[in-house]
């Protein structure tokens, strides 16, 4: 049980993202095949690919916090003495947490409005609330991740080594 939980903690977002990416590839393959081989342009693949992508983006938001790969400018903070560095990075986590809480709160009411309006996607008739729910889900996971990060930084889990050094950000 404990092992399963640890695996979830390490890999849950990564797993979801890998599945979503594979789905995007498969759907676009189907579309290209239907259009050029079967001469039949479908409208749903483009739509569903976009929605996979939206979910990918916001699950990815939480993933980047969990593996510390967000794009950031760390030149100045790296130049600070180590103690001060820790304080600043903790404050940064607090900022992100507040951002999530505020946006998530208002996101809920936006989601409610979208749900009541009954808006649907044009090709597949998917209720739009399932598309917008992606950001709320990403925020939810993100809150867990940022709290984990804050706990690590304050050293409450002193047993585990603080392996959250600055990793290289996105390489694009």
């Amino acid at each position, binding site marked *: 049980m404990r092992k399963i939980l640890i695996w979830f903690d390490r890999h849950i977002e990564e797993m979801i993202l890998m599945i979503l990416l594979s789905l995007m590839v498969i759907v676009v393959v189907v579309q290209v095949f239907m259009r050029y081989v079967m001469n039949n342009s479908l409208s749903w693949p483009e739509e569903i690919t976009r929605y996979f992508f939206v979910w990918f983006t916001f699950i*990815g938001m939480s993933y980047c916090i969990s593996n510390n790969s967000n794009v950031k400018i760390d030149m100045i903070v790296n130049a600070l003495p180590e103690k001060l560095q820790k304080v600043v990075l903790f404050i940064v986590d607090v900022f992100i947490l507040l951002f999530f809480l505020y946006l998530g709160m208002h996101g809920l009411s936006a989601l409610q409005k979208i749900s009541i309006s009954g808006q649907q996607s044009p090709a597949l008739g998917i209720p739009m609330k399932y598309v917008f729910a992606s950001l709320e889900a990403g925020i939810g996971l993100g809150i867990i991740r940022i709290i984990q990060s804050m706990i690590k930084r304050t050293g409450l889990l002193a047993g585990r080594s603080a392996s959250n050094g600055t990793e290289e950000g996105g390489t694009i």
Partner: protein
Amino acid sequence: MKLGLIFIGFFSLLFICVPIGFSLGIISLLAKVIYPNLPANAEFVFRHMVSAVDTYPIVAVPLFILSGIIMARGGVSLKLFDVFAYFAGNRTGGLPTAVTITCLFYGAISGSAPATTAAVGAMTIPILVSMGYEKVFVTSLVATAGSLGVIIPPSIPLIIYGLSSGQSVGSLFIAGIIPGIVVGLSIILVSYIYCRLKGEDKEKLNENSLRLRSKGFLNIFKDSFWALLTPVIILGGIYGGIVTPTEAANISVVYSLIISLFIYKSLTIRDLPGILREAVKITAPILIVVSTATVFGRVLTLLQAPQIIANTITAVFHTKFSLLIVINIFLLFVGMIMDTTAAILILTPILLPVITRFGINPIHFGVIMVVNLAIAFVTPPVGLNLYVASSISGLPVTRIANKALPFIGAFIIALMLITYVPVVSLYLLK
């Protein structure tokens, strides 16, 4: 001035190391505090963060990253290099030229500069060093030529620019072809002069060229054929208007999988999860920036910031010539400290009204912007190519950066040409 307050707030967040994506989100929310009448409330930010990434062209980004990784693991860059090395033979500066041309071709497979540096560098640096070239010279050459990855289509920064400016990604891709070749030629020229001045180990070169020639051109060509065909398929499809960039990206994923699994047999099905994992790792950090930067751009537009900035700039600069100089210097500077995607998404909505007022073609401007940011991949402190090249060669970043200076000089001269001669970018579009 209130607008200044927003930018000061934004940069303060950036400099205390708040990730760029969150800085943009936070400042978009705070704008409402500074301007109470602004219609952009938290619900607006929430809705637009989602709709910003609900577009089809951007799906090309993870797909091109994925195909780039498959090609890199499948060893495609070496196959390309062999062909050009064959032609280079024992000519002066031949092998360094072959490296640059490999980067040009690899750029037509990959949409990323660090990925091009990594794929070509890992294969060619050891070969050139064994041929007697100075390691730091070769490393700085690959680090600079790797930047061609984002100028030669497909290009992730050009996709992002298309998204932000509303220009067609297909047209931007086509506009990037000749400028990429111009930059490539300028790098080749510098490496030729260097080899001419420094001299080469002709004995080893003769040996190598004999070895390749004994294999016979047909054998080498047969082996590289499928690799050489990749850019033809991708560029041909887009140039011929047969496929959209997103579809081209997908075709390149499928094609690269087929050739590495079944033809070169350099990958097995078991490698696929690792490839997906790497693609996820590279893609995820870009997307949150795309989402919040787009929202920030909309907030700025609601505040009419682009018009205000355009008015200020047009009041100071009266000619296209001086405007472009200033924009180039500014972009080079921004590229040095900021991530490419974020820079494009933040600056495009601000600069676009200015440049259209001066009658500069938005497609041409996209190319100028991307070439500028491409140079920034080789300049410290955050030039990613330098770090990639340093991890391949084991040389310190500062040494590579110093040695790259002549290349960067040539790059900047090419940039001037691309900036002031619009036809270089626009010729193929006519």
